[in-house]
């Protein structure tokens, strides 16, 4: 595999059975993403965007196909990976950002950011001050999530995703709960993170945000379109 490729997905398929009918939520998608590359996955609701993101992020096993992240082959073997195996891969390679920020309301900003470190401390982990400074929230470190704006909460969620120094940042509708001004801020942050060499893959409905990506995967009915 080319050293400049961080994610390499080949012919990924996710199929479900609905009664006697087989539904292919993702149907043979292949793509590659290099270091510092920002990839946007777009498409109508139900097209399979999030399913694809979940497979890339090891939240779900594909039905078939292969996935490599860095030097490691994640999927493509004969068996499905167990939940524990998936967790081990996730915590070593990925950071996640969701539309809902999922911050713990009784923990301060700094404590929320440190949360992944309570379960796993990566050798490439960053200090909370470093990531807070990167995201411009260092002055909010002692605040509770309820005292923050939506944009600030999403910055905290991004900081939390970065604390263990992931190779890949996955974001599912990262601006879905934000107004246009905050969306611009988050767009700038994601662009900046890619600029620092982190591979970013995001699912979005926001075409303006998608336009800022280096690569856009347009998915219709589980297949790459165009």
């Amino acid at each position, binding site marked *: 595999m080319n050293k400049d490729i961080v994610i390499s997905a080949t012919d990924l398929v996710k199929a479900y059975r609905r009664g006697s009918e087989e539904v292919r939520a993702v149907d043979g998608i292949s793509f590659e993403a290099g270091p510092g590359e920002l990839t946007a996955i777009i498409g109508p609701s139900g097209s399979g965007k999030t399913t694809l993101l979940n497979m890339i992020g090891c939240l779900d096993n594909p039905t078939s196909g292969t996935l490599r992240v860095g030097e490691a082959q994640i999927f493509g073997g004969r068996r499905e990976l167990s939940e524990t195996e998936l*967790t081990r891969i996730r915590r070593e390679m990925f950071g996640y950002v969701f539309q809902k920020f999922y911050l*713990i309301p009784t*923990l301060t900003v700094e404590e929320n950011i440190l949360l992944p470190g*309570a379960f796993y401390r990566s050798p490439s982990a960053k200090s909370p001050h470093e990531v807070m400074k990167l995201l411009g929230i260092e002055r909010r470190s002692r605040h509770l999530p309820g005292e923050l704006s939506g944009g600030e909460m999403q910055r905290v969620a991004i900081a939390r995703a970065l604390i263990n120094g992931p190779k890949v940042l996955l974001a599912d509708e990262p601006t879905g709960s934000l107004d246009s001004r905050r969306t611009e801020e988050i767009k700038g942050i994601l662009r900046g993170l890619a600029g620092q060499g982190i591979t970013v893959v995001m699912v979005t409905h926001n075409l303006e945000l998608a336009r800022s990506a280096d690569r856009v995967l347009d998915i219709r009915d589980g297949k790459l379109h165009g």
Partner: protein
Amino acid sequence: MNVYAIAYKNLLRKKIRTALTAGGIMLSAWVLATLLGFNRGYQQGLNRDIDNMGFQVLLTAKGCPYEAATLMLKGGTGLRYMPESVVKTVFKNPEVEKVTPMLMHGVFDPNKGENGAVAAYLGVDSESFPPMKPYLEFKQGGWFKSNTALEAVLGYEAAELETREAGDKLLIPGLDQELTVVGVLKRSGTQDDGTIFLPISTVQNLFNRKGMLTGLGIKVKKEADISALENRLYDLPDVQVVSMAQVKTTIMNLVNSARVIVLGIAGIALIIAMAGVINTILMSVMERYSEIGILKSMGAMPLDVFRMIWMETAILCGLGGAAGIGLAFVTARVSEAAVRYFLPYAPNGALVALDGEITGFAFLLILAGGLLSGVYPAWRAARVRPLDAIRVEGDQV
């Protein structure tokens, strides 16, 4: 940031619910510690009371054994008498070290209390009785000069009740006989505190009971075979042998029967508290279903999640248990007063004896019960699949 801090802060999210659950655990711990302390205290008190009698065997005139036990423990009036000659007969037994004859007599005093009450006088031998009660110390004065003197020694509480000091006169109601108070005892924490002691011959003379006794206390020699002595004493006509060991066993059997019921109640309280813990933690897990999924997506292993939820249970039970045991210490005297009010006989001294062993046991039992209750919710949380959890709408900010 560690799992313990996260668990603690999770409990703070729903403060009222956490407080109510911890309150339930606290009450269970309180009931458990108090009951265990009561059992220990009652047993210790009973042993102390009986050991402080100074003799191991009591002879009384034949009658109800429980009446005899009451006579010993509460100083009730003896309704039956035995001849004084029994002293010599008993002394012939090689196991006997000392004997002390006693004659109890009660007189109704219409001026006592609102409706009058019985004033009880215990006639004792001024030579043999004091050595059997070495723990009795005088606050004022001393023992009577002879067994025929018109003198009295008052227990600490009896002196307070009669408002008498050494040197004062004490009138026996109905006889118009005055006695001189020659001594007042210090508080001993035994039934002797409420007793009015008179010389035995004085009681026999004043109440026309010459040559009669209500009881004979027998101190047995060290290493002597008490049961062999008791078997021989059983053969004496018209007397009844009451061994302190028997009395102790009889009362403890009654107490143990009550304890089974009471511990059953404590067990039910513990089960209710455990159900409360399961309910609270399970509800908390369900409410945080999405959040737990997110934690797993960040790299929390099933065991990490199990540990976090289990730790919440441990903190809840630990705090509730500690508070309950603290409450048991604070309310020990109130519990004791309630027990004394309801029980027909309660020994002197602390009735609720809480020590490190009892409180440690109660705390560990509560903690173990709580941790057991936390297993199912923690297991449910550990099984949450991040993918399913993320799909569920949560209430997180």
